[in-house]
């Protein structure tokens, strides 16, 4: 499902003396099936954008296209439920949304709200709890008896259970330890590939954006200021600096090697593996001459 924001502005407390614009004229186009990253610092407007993807917020100006639906300013948006089923959002610290007596019921909450029969919802819950890396026994436990990391996984399963076509992730690994972070990010990437999902990752981690995203939008003070593939964006160090963003560590390191060795690698490397391979090529090339 394609998602497109056209000249979207959004103001909090519109029409009061406290009116404050959080988005100005934002343009974002996300093609079905891509892995899109939205990067920016706290206060850049990235969490406001994300609430436009399933109609939680309605633009103050401009249009939001979600599949063939259009949500625009000045028009009442009716029947948002079908949109919300197709666009699942994993909010930051999603474990805060857990409320049911058992993990099973909590995972079933989403699908059942959308009219999925109980048996089917339960089937999904049983399948997903394993997918997110938890033993089946937790289904009967209270979510509040689990560890923080486990609760996070249950909450993610609860969103996946709606079987959305578009998955929006807001800093999904915040506060987890390194192993947990890697496991969760890899899981989302596998899902993205296997189920052909459209994935939108809202993050301040340049590393995650470099590793996973097909395309990146950079947000700065409520505007979408740069768009491009990771390789394109990370080539432009100066522009990034202007938005107080750093290069991903791997790209910084590549620059350092290039400077030290007086070489220029043919491409910007986005993962450690890629860089190692490129450097190896150069070294072997030297040995042969």
């Amino acid at each position, binding site marked *: 499902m394609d998602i497109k924001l056209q000249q979207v502005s959004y103001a909090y407390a519109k029409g009061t003396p406290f009116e404050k614009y959080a988005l100005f004229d934002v343009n974002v186009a996300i093609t079905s099936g891509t892995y899109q990253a939205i990067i920016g610092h706290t206060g850049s407007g990235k969490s406001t954008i994300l609430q436009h993807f399933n109609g939680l917020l309605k633009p103050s100006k401009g249009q939001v296209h979600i599949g063939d639906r259009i949500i625009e300013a000045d028009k009442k948006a009716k029947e948002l439920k079908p949109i919300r089923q197709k666009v699942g959002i994993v909010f930051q610290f999603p474990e805060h949304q857990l409320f049911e007596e058992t993990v099973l019921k909590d995972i079933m909450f989403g699908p059942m709200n959308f009219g999925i029969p109980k048996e089917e919802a339960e089937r999904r819950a049983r399948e997903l709890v394993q997918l997110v890396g938890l033993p089946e026994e937790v289904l009967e436990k209270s979510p509040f008896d689990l560890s923080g990391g486990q609760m996070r996984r249950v909450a993610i399963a609860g969103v996946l259970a*709606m079987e959305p076509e578009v998955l929006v992730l807001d800093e999904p690994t915040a506060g987890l330890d390194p192993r947990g972070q890697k496991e969760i990010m890899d899981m989302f990437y596998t899902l993205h590939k296997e189920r052909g999902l459209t994935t939108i990752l809202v993050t301040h981690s340049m590393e995650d954006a470099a590793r996973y995203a097909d395309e990146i939008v950079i947000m700065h003070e409520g505007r979408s200021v740069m768009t491009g593939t990771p390789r394109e964006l990370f080539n432009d160090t100066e522009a990034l600096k202007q938005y107080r963003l750093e290069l991903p560590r791997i790209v910084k390191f590549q620059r350092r090697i290039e400077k030290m060795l007086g070489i220029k690698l043919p491409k910007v490397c986005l993962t450690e593996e890629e860089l190692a391979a490129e450097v190896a090529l150069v070294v072997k090339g030297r040995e042969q001459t």
Partner: protein
Amino acid sequence: MMEKMIFGRYIPGDSFVHRLDPRSKLLFVFAFIVIVFLANNTITYVLLLAFTIGVILLSRIRLYFLINGLKPVIFLMIFTFLIHILFTREGTVLIDWGFLKVYEEGLKQGIFISIRFLVLVFMTSVLTLTTSPISITDGVETLLGPFKKVKLPVHELALMMSISLRFIPTLMDETDKIMKAQMARGSDLSAGSLKDRLKAVVPLLVPLFVSAFKRAEDLATAMEVRGYRGGEGRTRYRQLKWDVSDTLAIASLVVMAVLLVYFRN
């Protein structure tokens, strides 16, 4: 979420009224509420109105905020106005439509009662609009100080109030976030029967309570580690200062009271 709460919200500023000691403002408003009831004829009501307008001008509060403060009571105001107009049968008849007669005295009483509402709402709004909640807490704590002798836990009450105030924005944000998260999972708070709606509140309330308790626990730990063990032996960082202007404010109210007594019927 916070943005919707305009009524009673503190609007920072540097006017004469803003700079007054919270104690004098609190005393002022309480005394004002009492003397309002002294007014009972045209001249006294005009005096009250003029006095209120004077205070509003001194506070340099935008009219917008005061009008907003009226919203919750506007219905009550109109209702009592109508009651007086319709049911008072004294003085000359002003309008006579057969089934409906409006007497002069009725109109007068209706207007008086509306002015009374107006000045009460405006004065209390001026208090909350020009005094930060934490200053009000300080003021209340000091004014209630003497009641410590009769074992009223004044310090604890004030601390409770200030911590609640401190966490209101945090919890409002939290509510907003949880609501959005559940809406994204298809929960609908605005549709269906009353029973459905009540059921839809559960996914909101449970996480909110869980989080509030977690916060309370964390906060208690942080407070304990930072050496908090009750009010005993504590010193105060917030010092209140009674100025000449505070004395003047109270004096103006005394003058007002004297005038009202003098001119009332």
